[in-house]
């Protein structure tokens, strides 16, 4: 008779295998381990607590339904993150279709604005505590359009290549590069402004 699994001490790989065999308790343990990360990614994209909770829960339901498809090519956390990113992108696209865009957003989409920004001559994050820098980055990210924010998240935090981002966002590599360039330049400018505000 096989010994029952100790879910708390099991590895992700063991928990995934048990979940694939239908063990709900193993899956619950996986949720408990990774729920903060999945929620944080949803929040970083949606910028809304309620939507982030709902989408992260939807991602877990989807994950359970697709567990058989998980082959272990990446870590379970990476696989889960991709699911929640896709759900967030679907939701953001639906929202975009139903709201009018501002002229500023259209300018961002068309590109070219970033070339008019003056180049920053001093490091905007120099001398900042990590917690303070995080706060400022978060504040600046909040001011980006979802397309620019997502490209930045996927490239800098999820460490995805241009080609992978283009696939996830369903756009060309050129668009990815252009959005990333704009996002970085705008972020530099926003961080600089926050630094000046702090100094004055």
């Amino acid at each position, binding site marked *: 008779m096989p010994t029952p699994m100790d879910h708390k001490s099991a590895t992700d790989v063991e928990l995934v295998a048990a979940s694939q065999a239908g063990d709900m308790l193993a899956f619950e343990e996986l949720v408990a381990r990774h729920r903060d990360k999945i929620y944080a990614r949803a929040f970083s994209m949606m910028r809304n607590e309620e939507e982030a909770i709902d989408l992260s829960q939807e991602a877990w339901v989807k994950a359970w339904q697709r567990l058989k498809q998980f082959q272990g090519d990446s870590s379970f956390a990476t696989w889960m993150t991709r699911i929640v990113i896709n759900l967030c992108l679907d939701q953001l696209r639906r929202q975009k279709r139903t709201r009018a865009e501002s002229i500023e957003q259209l300018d961002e989409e068309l590109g070219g604005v970033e070339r008019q920004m003056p180049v920053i001559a001093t490091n905007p994050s120099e001398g900042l505590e990590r917690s303070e820098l995080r706060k400022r980055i978060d504040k600046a990210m909040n001011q980006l359009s979802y397309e620019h924010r997502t490209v930045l998240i996927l490239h*800098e935090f999820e460490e995805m290549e*241009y080609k992978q981002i283009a696939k996830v966002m369903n756009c060309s590599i050129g668009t990815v590069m252009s959005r990333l360039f704009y996002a970085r330049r705008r972020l*530099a400018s926003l961080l600089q402004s926050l630094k000046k505000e702090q100094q004055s």
Partner: protein
Amino acid sequence: MNTELKLQALLDGELETREVRELEALLAKDTQQAALLQELKWTKAAVAGNDVALSLPETRDFYWSKIAREIETAEKNAAVPAERPWWIQYFYPATGLAAMVALMFVISGGRDTDGANTESVPEDVNAVSFRSDAQEMSVVYVADEQGKISPVGQEAKNEPETDK
């Protein structure tokens, strides 16, 4: 690809060796582009590792309960077709056939599909006739003085001639 995007690709390690050499040569003489590359480097360094760190504002049990409920509902919904008895599949052709018959009945205006007709003759005659092309027969029922209806004439083809 314009020079700015090439600079970014250089920073992200997405350029081929030949393009890297070309760009480095450009950067050695173009201070404006070198300053832009520096800005991109600062931004990349500032963002790296500074992803927002958040904790779910819900308890483990409360958060899990909704997930478990959704999974259960989805599985119940998916299981509904499987709960039908195995023998029900043998009735699918019969239901299809019944639907076809009903459709033909509607199209034919209520006539029998074998071409049989029931026809009432004028009221003063008090008779009813029945004719079937498929059965190759026709029968006439006539009422007597008491109103009792009985067949008075019958024509049938290919009937065995046993009484002759």
